Every structure is written in C-alpha cells, then in structure tokens.
C-alpha cells in the first residue's frame, strides 16, 4: 500500500509516494538520496539515524528515523547533520567534533551531532537526566557525567566517547549557563 506525503528535509520540501512500510530513514536514504543520516541497526538501538524533527514550525527534537514510519511524518520538517548549519559552513558542534577528533570511522557521527544539538536544547529547557542530582537546578548543569548520560543512546564502536563529551562540553560551556 502506498501513500503520498511531503517531507521537508534540511529546508527543502519533497513530495513523494512511499510504501507505507517505509521508514523515515529509508525514505531519506533510498528515496531522497539524503545519506547524511546513517543506518546502524534499524532497530532504534544505536542512535546512528538520529535526526531533528519538528512539526508546525516548532523546535526540532531528536528522534530515531529508523523507528519512524514515513507515512506518519507527512508535513514534518527533518534536519540532518548536513542541514544543521543551514548551508553555511559547519555548525559549531560539527567544528568541535573535528577539533577534538570526536570520531574515528565517522559512521555514528551525524547521529551523535544531531543528538547533541537536541540534547543541549533539552538541557536548556530544564529537562533532568538519570544522573541529575538536584532536580531544582535550572538549567541542568552539564558536567561530563551529565553529557555522557544524555548521549548514551548514541553508540560509537570506535569508542570516541571521551572526545565526544569534550566536544559537546566545549560548545555547551560558553553560554554561561552550563559548567
């Protein structure tokens, strides 16, 4: 069974007809040629396909594109790591990943970066994590343990974790609202 939907990806609108079994991830990669978003497990277990999704112009939230059926995302706006900077150089987090060598093979990297962007927004909005000691703290203080906990849905088999946390922290810190 097919359905016709529209998806806005990195600011560009696409109208397409999809098999209703098609995930957002396969729609991006196999139908629209948007391969910035990676398929690591197709089961929502690794985080490599993390994208930012917004509806009705709201702020993007991190979601796993492999667990999302495209037919249920008609009209959604999807931002991938390639679209984060709006076509203008590198996003500050992407720059930090290069500077801190926060990757090796690079396959989990776009998902890590999208996840970190979404995670920093969640922290600014005051969301606690499992390691937040003081739930009254506003905004959540992002020390290394907080960043690691909040990024644990994004696996990295090369194990660049320590450098990823450093890269995220370098971007989170200058705002003055985090440590």
């Amino acid at each position, binding site marked *: 069974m097919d359905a016709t939907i529209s998806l806005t990806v990195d600011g560009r609108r696409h109208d397409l007809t999809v*098999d209703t*079994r*098609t995930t957002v991830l*396969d729609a991006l*990669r*196999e139908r629209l*040629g948007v*391969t*910035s*978003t*990676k*398929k*690591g*497990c*197709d*089961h929502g*277990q*690794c985080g*490599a396909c993390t994208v930012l999704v917004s509806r009705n112009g709201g702020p993007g939230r991190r979601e796993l594109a492999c667990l999302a059926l495209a037919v249920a995302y008609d009209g959604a706006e999807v931002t*991938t*790591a*390639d679209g*984060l900077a709006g076509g203008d150089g*590198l996003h500050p987090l*992407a*720059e930090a*990943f*290069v*500077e801190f*060598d926060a*990757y*090796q*093979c*690079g*396959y*989990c*990297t*776009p998902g890590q*970066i999208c996840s970190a962007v979404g995670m920093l927004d969640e922290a600014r909005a005051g969301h606690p994590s499992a*390691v937040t000691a003081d739930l009254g703290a506003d905004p959540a203080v992002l020390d290394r*343990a907080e*960043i*690691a*906990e909040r*990024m*644990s*849905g*994004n*696996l*990295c*088999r*090369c*194990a*660049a*974790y*320590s*450098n*990823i*946390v450093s890269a995220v922290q370098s971007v989170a810190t200058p705002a003055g609202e985090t440590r």
Partner: protein
Amino acid sequence: MTLVEPRAMGTALPRIEGPAKVTGTAHYAFEQFVDDPLYLAGVVSSIARGRVRAIDTSVAEALPGVVAVLTAESAPRLAPDAGAEQAVLQSDAVHYRGEYVAAVVAESPETAREAADAVVVSYEAEPSSTVLDPDSPEAYTPEIVVMFPPDTVAGDPDAALVASPVRTRATYTTSGNHHHPMEPHASIARWDGDRVVVFESTQSVWETRRGIAGLFALSEDAVTVVSPHVGGGFGTKGGMHANSVLTVLAARAVPGRPVKLALTRREMTDTTGYRPGTVQHVELGADTDGRLRAITHDAVEQTARMAEFGEPTAVYSRHLYAAPHRRTTHRLVPLDRSVPTFMRAPGEAPGSFAAESAMDELAHELGIDPIELRIRNEPDVDPDSGLPFSTRNLVACLRRGAERFGWADRDATPRARLVDGWWHGTGVAASFFPAFTMPGSAASIRYDQDPDRFRVDIAAADIGQGARTALTQIAADALGVPASRVDLNLGDTGLPHATVAGGSAGTASWGTAIVDAADRFRDKWGDDPDDAAEAEGVAQANPDAAAYAMGAYGAHFVEVAVHADTGEIRVPRMLGVFAAGRIVNPLTARSQFLGGMVWGLSMALHEESVVDPGVGHVVNGDLAGYHFAAHADVGDIDAEWIEEQDPHVNPMGTKGIGEIGIVGAAAAVANAAHHATGVRVRSLPITLDDFLGS
C-alpha cells in the same frame, strides 16, 4: 635504516575527511549513487547442521516487485574450489544456523524482505555441536594458528613447575565476541557483461577484488572494487564473507542492474565472523623473589567444522616474560557454527587476559607489587626467538603509568577500601602487540604544476584509524613538502595495490610503499619536478625483520568500584601508557589508543556472545542484547605514550597502534576488581553476580 625526517609527522593534523564526516556527506558503500537499484534480502537456515530438503519459493515469486529468487538450485555456479564460507548457495548442505539458503532480489527493500519471509524451507536436521566443551573428544591440534606454530616448548616446564617454590595455576575463560562496526557490512554490485563493479565496505579493496575474481573465474582486471569510506572494521571486513559473495552472485542474475545489500545486526552476528571463545589454563612457577622459572599457557578454543580459524591465544605468553622453562599449546574444538575470524588483537586480546591475570595472582601470592614482579621478569632478548628487541619499553611504560596514576600510594590489601557503599580497587596489566610490516603494497606519486600539488595514490583503506590523514603526513615528509600540498587517494582498485588494513600493519606497510615512491620521485626529479612528473614505489620486505624482535608495548592502569550490595561494577578511571615507535598523528593516535582501551573495558564487562546450545542460535544478535560500552560506561580515561626511536621497524619508525589498546585492558579491569573486592573473576565478561555473596 634511515628514518624519514619528521615535519608533518608528529603534528596533530585534524582528519582530512573531517568536514565530510561531521556533515554525513562522506559516502560509505551503501550510499554510493547508482541508477535504478534492486534490493537483496537473504533467507537463512534455522538449523545448525543438516540439509535443505525443499524450498518453496512460489509465494515469494508471485509478489509484485520481486525480480528473482535464488536458491542452491537456481543460483549461478561459483568456482569449484571456493572456500566453504564463500561457496554461497552452491549446495543443499547447512553448516550453521543463519547460513544463507536462499535470497530474494526485489525492486524495494520492503518487498525484498517480505518476499524473503515468504520463502518456505524444510530441512533434514542432523545432530549438532554448537557450544565449546574444553574436554571435547573432537579437540585437535591445528597445523597453524593464523601464522604461528600451535605449540612451543622450551626446557622442561612441568618439572620446573613442580620444583618451583611458588606456583599458581588457574583456568580462564573468555566469551565469543562480535565486532559490530557501526556501519553494517554493505555491498552494491553491478555486472556489465563479464565485468563487475562492487562498492564494498572493506578493509582491503584488492583482497575483495582477488576473492571475487577467483570465485567467478574472472581476470582481476574485470573486477572493480571501490570503498572510499569504511564505518569501522575491526577485522570483520578484512576477508570476504558470505554477504559479499551473495550480492555479487545475485547481481549476476540481473545483469546491468545494481543490487544492494546492507546486513542486519542479526546477519552480522551470524555470518561475518566473530572472536571465538577460549578456555585457557595458565600455570606459573617462581622463586620466592618472584623470578619466573616456568610459564605454561594451554588454550582450548572453538573453531568451525566448515572451515578452520585458530585464534593464536597463547602466543602472547611466548614474548612477554623471561622464564627458562616455557610451554604454549592450542587445541581447537570444531563446532557447527559459522567461521570465527580476526577481531581486534586476535590472540593477544583473550591471551593477555589470562596471562596478565595470572601475573597478578602470582604477585598477590608472593606479596610482591605487580609492577615490580613484571620488571623482575623483563627479558633481555625475545624469550621465543632469542632475537634482540629492536626497541622494548615495557618497563618505561609501567613506571610512567605508575607515576601518573599514583601507584606508589597503593595499599595492596584486597577488599580494604569501602567508600559510600562501593568497594574500590586498582589494577595494572602489561600490553604487547607485534610490529608487522606487510610487503607488497605499491604507491604512485604525480606532481602537477597547476595547481602545484602532489597526488599520492595507494589502494589503502581508511576504516577510521585515520589512514588518509596519517599517510598524507608521511607522504609530505617523504617528499619534503608541506602536508597541505599533498592529495592522497585510497580505497579503489584503480589505484596501486595495497595490503589489508589489519594486523596493526596498515600505516607501516602503506607508508613504506609511499616512502619508496617518494625516494624514487626525488631521485628522478630532485626538488624541482617537471609538470606531470611521476614515480612509483613498492614496500619491500623489511630486511631487519629476521634480525630483531619487534613490537609495541604498553601498561594499563584501571580503577574499579564494585557496589557492596548489588555487585554493580563501574570503571571510574583508565590510563594507558604506550611505547609504539613514532606517533605520526598525536590527535588520531590518541583516539586509536582510547578506542582500544574501551574495547578492553567492553570485553571485560559487557561483551558476551550467548548461544542457545539446542539450535546453535546466538540469542543476543542485536545491539540491545549484545552490549558494548556506551557513553555513560566510560569514565575518566586517558592515553599517553613515551618517545621511542626505532630505526628497524620501517622508514617511518612507526609501530602499529590499532590493536595494542585492547591488549591487557580486560586483565587490568579484572585485577582491579580483585583488589577492590577480594574476588578473583577468571571468566569474561565479569558480571555483577560474580560479586554477590562475597
């Protein structure tokens, strides 16, 4: 030999492909653009051993969008001498659960999968054996374990053990492990007449070419393999597995159209190799001052009945410590499972767990500091070959690590530090990995006046280790120009031959070819080359290889906390100190060391291939069930290295660094856990139930 003068080497050049990787615009195998692709889905066996009795493909074939269904009856024939693992769909025999018995080619991935599910297979099952039993009557001595003799003996180790005033004996076991690189194995194949183009996620485009040419009876020139970016390999993408053969085979049935296959985690678990489980018996005999008289290291490990792979587990103990009486042995037990393969530090990773745990047990028995015990047994020459070391700085690594980690203040008493409900302890282990250089890689260099740049071509593989960047730095220094004027191309059989990214030998082997090409280029053209000036070079066998024992060394320091009530295990601190020759790029090298150390952490605490003995099914065949370290599992971790000048290893003075990070790391965790709790865990992975009731 004369070492290349380092200018670009030693600088922290960020990865050249960094901007492409952080935006996701680096194209991995499955992301190569092809017109009008078809999708492949496999049908796999549900029994561990036996025969396919019948396959009903009628429902699958009738589905709209299905282009072809392949079975052993209908699939194209491969060369009759195809290895068992590569002879895909060539007979009705089933060798393991999860083996391909049919495949579907369809217009969409959804249809391919639906059709694969609709194929009905019936079997004649035979009795199978799928779990390692160290006492199995089927155990045998292989002719070789990878490239080493299975057994070695010096002196009379059994008599020396009996005569030793202090003696330890214990059995250590390690689980099977799965590689699970983040990028699944992926292939795209398209036939055009008797030529085939393959986009492949591989550690060696040339090995893939050679393999396909052999299986399909083609000349090598008829096979093009392209692999510009590889999302991790760790050994599983070093040799060709069934999935690559299946893709090329299926594409053969639909000439002119590209066929795509990216594996699921289930398929990766079942068909792409794994580190075999081991059972290791280690005995040490020493004088009361800690000097070893005897070392025996006897390994029993699983292999596959369909094809042999012998993990060189006990080889580690041939090289680390001096003792006049020594023995190492390997026995293999064939199972009805898929074929094990190389996985990051094959042999050294499981072998060092046993050997370095045993040294800790001996230190405890003797009441000697475990670092001091290792220093007292430092050999003057390689214990196995008797050759001098080109460089060996294990003791320097131990001492530097001890200083930085704060080892001098350590109270050796186990189970003595309970802080807020957690038992704390620290542990140490040594590390070693041989420094290989593989001969046979070639490189070409070309200078173009406009735009005044040097192009360096070599079909090497950047699997995340940073080859593109490190080789650019090596080429720059060999040519005597800045790295910013060098363009390095790799990952394509259109480029000069390169050996595999494996054995921690990539940079050493490819760099040797590049240095040779640069030497020839400068001999021919001087420092002011003409436009379009070219030269080629090759990596010859290292003339010093027969005269010296060569290896990288290291020391791991680990802090472990074990919860007194729940047994939960945490690793708040890890430090690795390594001596690995010249470090080409300190930024990317540190990442490799850290990555290896986290692999050791995962091996120690998380990774376990759980097999249902009834049907030979790996029950945790996905990333929810097969655990490796996530962000929150990694605490304060750092790696550093000591300066080392080695003129014997290769013209760059480098030793491999891709694998040494894991070697010994799991033992350091186990040793720290013993210091924390007094419980000696000799079976990996260590889990919380190991500490309950203690």
